[in-house]
């Protein structure tokens, strides 16, 4: 195995990778920005080096600095996590040149799958169905896109050529609104990826976002680990994922799995990877894109297969054959992941920043939390708002939902607003319980208020609580000056209310 691995990332995924390395006896090297000196990945790693100021461009995107650190620390391999440099062909190539294993695919595979147009062309050749669009045509001007749009038909999607994660993506329902949306899509793509090129794609209605996890080693073995259901999205950001999907049966799973393996083989893929599909109501499916890296939502697959995907990535990068054959991949139970974001679900999901002053993690049977934050940690505006992933396993989907409900109720994060109430509301939604949802569900047919109506009303309790707090604040503030003088020693530890009643 490797002796030392550099983790070129931050947050929960850096912690996740450090854990896998530690469990394999591999030393770890963390890199960090000035905003992350106290981050968990720095606390957990064996070595840690400063990259630069907080903005990603000056820190986590500085491939040159990361390579310098890798050489200085004499690492055997670099794990890029997801985001940042994970899908940069040039970074994979830099590692290759430096004689350091890149825990990811070859530069050529990233190139082939990274440019969406090329990816489409490649998989079409391999016999994989794709969504109608302009992707294969190459980069078009605004006027060319205006001309093509009616041919594809509305509604359609504008998507960033270099994109991912919903950035630079816009939905267009008519030609009139297209200019504005095109401009904003290009602007966002330019800012996110340094590349303002976009393409058009037919919008599949009532579609589910289904992705197949694959593993491919250097010996030509490629297997799939079944699918993940990722249809619950908002602004094209995934919010909640499941494995397996209630929309697939064994036959469709085998078929989509086989095509995913084919797609991966078409670019000589090596590493863990994900093939994303849209699945329509009639069980037609279309290739969307390939993610040539570890996915945020990989844990749900780990929970139902028992396979540690990060450890397999390390194994593959070391040149060893996969630990499992396709036949050995068995699915057991059901897993759900809720992405916990520092966002206020009661204020249009606005990002929330601040110091986490108190936190209680849900634990107990069948619960896993992947996070990079802890009480005392400051959530800054520099990075994405996902602060934790809450993952549960149950013997059945119904049991997993009940367990997730229990875990969400236990989870306390004080200091920043989070979208936990959104997930709680989702778990209570009848459509979610019935598995009847598609990629438009959250934005079009779900509201915090409607869903909450099914639930018990605790207005009276809220009235009592707020009144008690108001009452004691008022009472205490009038007494506070006197008390303060003779009792200032330990006010760190007890609240004013408690002190008053001692």
């Amino acid at each position, binding site marked *: 195995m490797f002796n030392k691995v550099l983790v070129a990332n931050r947050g929960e995924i850096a912690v996740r990778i450090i854990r896998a390395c530690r469990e394999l006896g591999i030393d770890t090297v963390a890199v960090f920005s000035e905003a992350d000196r106290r981050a968990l990945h720095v606390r957990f790693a064996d070595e840690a080096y400063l990259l630069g100021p907080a903005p990603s461009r000056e820190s986590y995107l500085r491939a040159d600095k990361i390579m310098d650190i890798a050489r200085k620390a004499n690492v055997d391999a670099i794990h890029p996590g997801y985001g940042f440099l994970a899908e940069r062909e040039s970074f994979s190539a830099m590692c290759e040149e430096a004689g350091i294993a890149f825990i990811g695919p070859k530069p050529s595979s990233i190139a082939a799958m990274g440019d969406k147009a090329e990816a489409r062309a490649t998989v079409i050749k391999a016999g994989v169905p794709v969504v109608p669009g302009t992707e294969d045509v190459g980069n078009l001007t605004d006027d060319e896109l205006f001309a093509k749009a009616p041919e594809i038909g509305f509604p359609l999607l504008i998507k960033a050529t270099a994109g991912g994660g919903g950035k630079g993506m816009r939905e267009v329902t008519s030609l009139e609104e297209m200019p504005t949306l095109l401009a904003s899509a290009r602007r966002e793509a330019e800012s996110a990826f340094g590349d303002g090129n976009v393409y058009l794609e037919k919008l599949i209605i009532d579609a589910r976002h289904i992705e197949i996890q694959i593993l491919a080693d250097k010996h030509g073995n490629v297997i799939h680990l079944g699918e993940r259901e990722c249809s619950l999205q908002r602004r094209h950001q995934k919010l909640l994922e499941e494995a397996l999907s209630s929309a697939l049966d064994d036959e469709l799973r085998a078929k989509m799995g086989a095509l995913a393996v084919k797609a991966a083989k078409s670019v000589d893929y090596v590493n863990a990877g994900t093939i994303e599909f849209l699945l329509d109501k009639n069980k037609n499916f279309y290739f969307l894109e390939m993610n040539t890296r570890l996915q945020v939502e990989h844990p749900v697959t780990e929970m139902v297969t028992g396979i540690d995907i990060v450890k397999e990535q390390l194994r593959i990068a070391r040149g060893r054959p996969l630990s499992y054959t396709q036949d050995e991949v068995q699915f057991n139970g059901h897993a759900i992941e809720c992405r916990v974001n520092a966002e206020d679900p009661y204020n249009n999901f606005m990002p929330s920043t601040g110091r986490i002053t108190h936190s209680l993690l849900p634990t107990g049977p069948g619960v896993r939390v992947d996070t990079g934050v802890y009480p005392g940690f400051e959530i800054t505006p520099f990075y994405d708002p996902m602060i934790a992933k809450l993952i549960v396993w149950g013997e059945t989907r119904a049991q997993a939902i009940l367990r997730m409900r229990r875990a969400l109720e236990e989870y306390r994060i004080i200091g920043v607003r989070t979208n936990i109430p959104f997930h709680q509301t989702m778990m209570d939604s009848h459509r979610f319980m019935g598995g009847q949802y598609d990629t438009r569900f959250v934005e079009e047919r779900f509201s915090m208020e409607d869903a909450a109506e099914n639930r*018990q009303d605790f*207005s009276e309790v809220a009235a*009592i609580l707020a*009144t008690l707090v108001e009452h004691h604040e008022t009472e205490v503030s009038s007494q506070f000056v006197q008390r303060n003088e003779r009792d200032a020693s330990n006010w760190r530890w007890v609240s004013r209310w408690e002190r008053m009643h001692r």
Partner: protein
Amino acid sequence: MKYVATVEGKDFLVDIIDEKHVSVNGKTYEIDFVTVSGQPVYSLIADGMSHESYIARGDDGWQVLLRGRLYPVVVEDEREKRLRAAAGGGIAEGGEFNLKAPMPGLVVAVPVEDGQEIKKGQVLIILESMKMQNELKSPRDGKVSRIKVKAGESVEQKQALLSVV
């Protein structure tokens, strides 16, 4: 001590009788009310029912997060409330709207101009934070006034951005 607590338009007359008793609209509860670990997390046991809540002061009252749902609660001294009602109260509608940055970030674009007439829901500012572009919209029709930022500028949380009059 008597209060009126208003939750989503519904009034509750809450009487804090003593440390262990409150009544709500005439019904008395035996209560046990404490904070948890010095944080604004409160545990209330009322007639045996155990409730835990995170309570924060909001712009117009308390925000009570209880069992995954946020209840906005306005608490007023009963006497105060009666006086205000007698005075024929009611806050003026359609006052000036001052847009403040909801979080620190980078102004990506200001797609409106000083003096421009705008509609409710129209985008006033695009603010980037946590890798997301957030469109800040007008809560009502009006005219843009006092734009204080421009594209490319970094802003702090609560910094004034512009007004709609």
